[in-house]
């Protein structure tokens, strides 16, 4: 096993819910030692939520429930857990001692919380001059909306992205993507900025403060939409699956219940290949479809033709035939399709790990393959405070008696 690329770095993770913990987990997957600081005094909300494993019990934060959330297990794998009650002076002091021995501090607190905890960037710099502090506020640490309460869909609404998710025509706007889009976008950008800052620190010895406003990270991928408005003067609404440069370009119904196939054609050569793959039916010869401009204008008629061919076939057959002819096509997969797909299986998109309370569980695997230093899931998500003794006694060097006292005083809690 080769050495993992981030194995020289220690990260203190104050993240809660999604964006912060996922940013830290992207580093943990590739070897960083990530220490999750959490507490029963204020549990990470993702340890609660809706139970999926076992009985749908009521129990709040009592008993085993905080250990049974698979979503939490996904974005907290490969981490160590220390429970520090940051409401206490001693808890905050222990956090500082941990930070002194670390390279990166990550948080997605609301603006002002780090200052209240005495863990602001200037204070951390005094402790550890070359620390890298990463904050992930919703819309920024400054500005008129800085204190807004915002979850991922709220950010997506403010970003402009949501205004384009829906069908063309007058059907009610869909808006929602069934995933915490802005959380993940912010997490990936935070991880990216962190490794860039680590490289800079390796070269120069200099740390820094990184602010990733989740709204700005989301908009940073929407240049097409912003430039479209400025270049055309028109406010674009949702356009379904239509694309200004592709035709056909849609998800088409196949045989079976709720089965769909995506087909995307850009060039004339791809269009001709699609016609051949479909057995060159008469409608393909319609002169309106011969060139791309005509196909774009008449895309609804084109869709009707393609659909007449896909409707009686299985999505798998359609993909196979079209790909044999060099046409971009893929089944519209649900999570069952993804989990059982031989391609995603071979690429280890989903991995199993044994968790002490759940047993064997399947989690998402590596999002990208560093083929020389692959990383992966080395340890399951930690139970609450699982590594207290290691971190406080071994790493910080507390004597056993002191450790016990801090537990009884609910500082380590």
């Amino acid at each position, binding site marked *: 096993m080769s050495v*993992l690329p981030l194995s*020289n770095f220690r990260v203190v993770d104050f993240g809660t819910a999604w964006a912060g913990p996922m940013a830290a987990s992207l580093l943990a997957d590739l070897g960083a030692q990530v220490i999750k600081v959490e507490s029963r005094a204020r549990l990470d909300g993702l340890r609660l939520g809706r139970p*999926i494993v076992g009985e749908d019990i009521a129990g709040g934060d009592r008993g085993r429930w905080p250990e049974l959330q698979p979503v939490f297990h996904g974005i907290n794998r490969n981490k160590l857990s220390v429970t520090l009650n940051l409401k206490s002076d001693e808890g905050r002091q222990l956090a500082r001692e941990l930070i002194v021995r670390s390279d990166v501090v990550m948080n997605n607190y609301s603006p002002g919380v780090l200052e209240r905890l005495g863990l602001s*960037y200037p204070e951390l710099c005094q402790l550890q001059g070359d620390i890298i502090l990463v904050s992930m506020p919703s*819309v920024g640490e400054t500005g008129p*909306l800085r204190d*807004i309460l915002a*979850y991922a869909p*709220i950010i997506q609404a403010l*970003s*402009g992205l*949501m*205004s384009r998710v829906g*069908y063309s025509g007058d059907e*009610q706007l*869909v*808006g*929602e993507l*069934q*995933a*915490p889009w802005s959380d993940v976008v912010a997490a*990936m950008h935070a991880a*990216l900025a962190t490794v860039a800052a680590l490289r800079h620190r*390796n070269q120069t010895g200099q740390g820094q403060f990184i602010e990733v406003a989740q709204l700005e990270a989301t*908009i*940073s*991928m929407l*240049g*097409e939409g912003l*430039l479209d408005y*400025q*270049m*055309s003067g028109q*406010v674009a*609404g949702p356009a379904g699956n239509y694309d200004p*440069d*592709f035709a056909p370009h*849609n*998800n088409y119904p196949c045989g079976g219940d709720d089965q*769909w*196939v*995506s*087909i*995307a054609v850009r060039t004339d050569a791809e269009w001709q290949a699609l016609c051949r793959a479909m057995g060159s039916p008469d409608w393909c010869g319609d002169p309106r479809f011969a060139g791309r401009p005509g196909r774009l204008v008449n895309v609804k008629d084109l869709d009707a033709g393609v659909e007449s061919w896909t409707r009686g076939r299985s999505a798998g057959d359609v993909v196979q035939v079209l790909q044999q002819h060099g046409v*971009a096509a*893929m089944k519209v*997969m*649900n*999570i069952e399709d*993804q989990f059982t797909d*031989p391609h*995603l299986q071979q*690429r280890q998109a*989903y991995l199993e790990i044994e968790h002490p309370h759940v047993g064997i569980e399947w*989690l*998402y695997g590596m999002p*990208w393959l*560093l*083929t*020389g230093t692959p990383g992966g899931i080395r340890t399951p998500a930690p139970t609450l405070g699982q590594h207290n003794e290691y971190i406080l006694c071994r790493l910080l060097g507390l004597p056993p008696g002191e450790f016990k006292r801090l537990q009884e005083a609910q500082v380590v809690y």
Partner: protein
Amino acid sequence: MTAEPPPTPPRKPGALQGVRVVEWGSLVSAPFCGKLLAELGAEVIKVEPPGIGDDGRNSGPFPRGVPHPERSGLFLFANLNKRGVTLNLTDAAGRGLLGRLLESADVFLENQPLELLRQTGLDYASLQVQHPRLVVTSISPYGRSGPYQEYRGYDLTANAMSGLSFGTGHPHREPLTTPMHQASYLAGVGGAFATIVALLGRDLTGRGQLVDVAEAQVIGTLLTGYHLPTYIYRGVAGWRSGNRMRLGLFPNCVLPCQDGYICIDAPQIEQYQRFLALLGEQDWMEEPRYRDRRAMSDQYPAEAESLIAPWFMQRTREEILQACLANRIPCVPVKTFDEVLADPQLNYRDYFQEVGRVEAGGYRYPGPPYRLSETPCRVVRPAPTLGQHNREILGGEVGISEAELAQLVRGGIV
């Protein structure tokens, strides 16, 4: 007495100063990855086929909708801060010149079809022999290993495989892909992260490696992977639920109002109670059927939404925003892009950056996604025109003579 102008503060270097990237990118994913690396201070040289250029040049938006290879909004945005050369890589002489560029490069970044990479000897198996320290970042719809490695794909088909499309849209309609090529952009971000990690790894091992980023897998893990337990433990493979998030707590949806749409997502009980107080006392609020927020979200969401919809329909987005800000309720207008450009929060923070180029005019671009206190991102140059830096790079830096360059241009190599 004339005051001396204040000295210009020295420019802080970018975080990736000294990193050299050669990009052979097309459309969005690899170009956007290159843009992120360039914005962080890497030196990125973009290689395009002579006369044709990156296919992104043929993709909209265009000013007033008129196509022009130097005016594509997609291209201008995804290629900020790069220098550009033209090389015909299907020709041995062109590949020879690329090899010269790669000698001093840290990263080769591409998103070309595997078949073309093999034909040109630019697949990783071939490259690593000559350039063992090179990090090769390869972004593709489905990835460079596995049974579909040679399949054709675009953003639409990557979204399809990712699981995101299946859940997006109304239950009675076709699944919806992400708008504006979001799978490709996201893979670009992941590619930039993984590239820098591989560079850090090279400092430890002395070796480069292949970084294999599949658009479908980035989304299929980080975004939709969390649906896996619901499938394994509950047997639920997914469904479309239109304007509302599934498996949430009511209210968690997009609803029409007087002048557009709003989005509300108020999971915490205190948030919901403040929202009910804002609505004012109503008979339904006491009924047991409308006190179970999980059932309202899962079992009869349309009915539940109809109870709160009138309050929104009687108000404008601005009135709703102000009332919800004042009462600490997570509920905002669904903004369109003209409104995003005018947004007070973003403009207070100087988020947008004005970039101009003679052939294309000036526009306001999205700013960098993050702010680094010691190594700030900045715009150094607009996207390159086709072959803009041929002489500077191939002549000045690679050391091709003027006469040789002229011959290469005549031969269609440059």
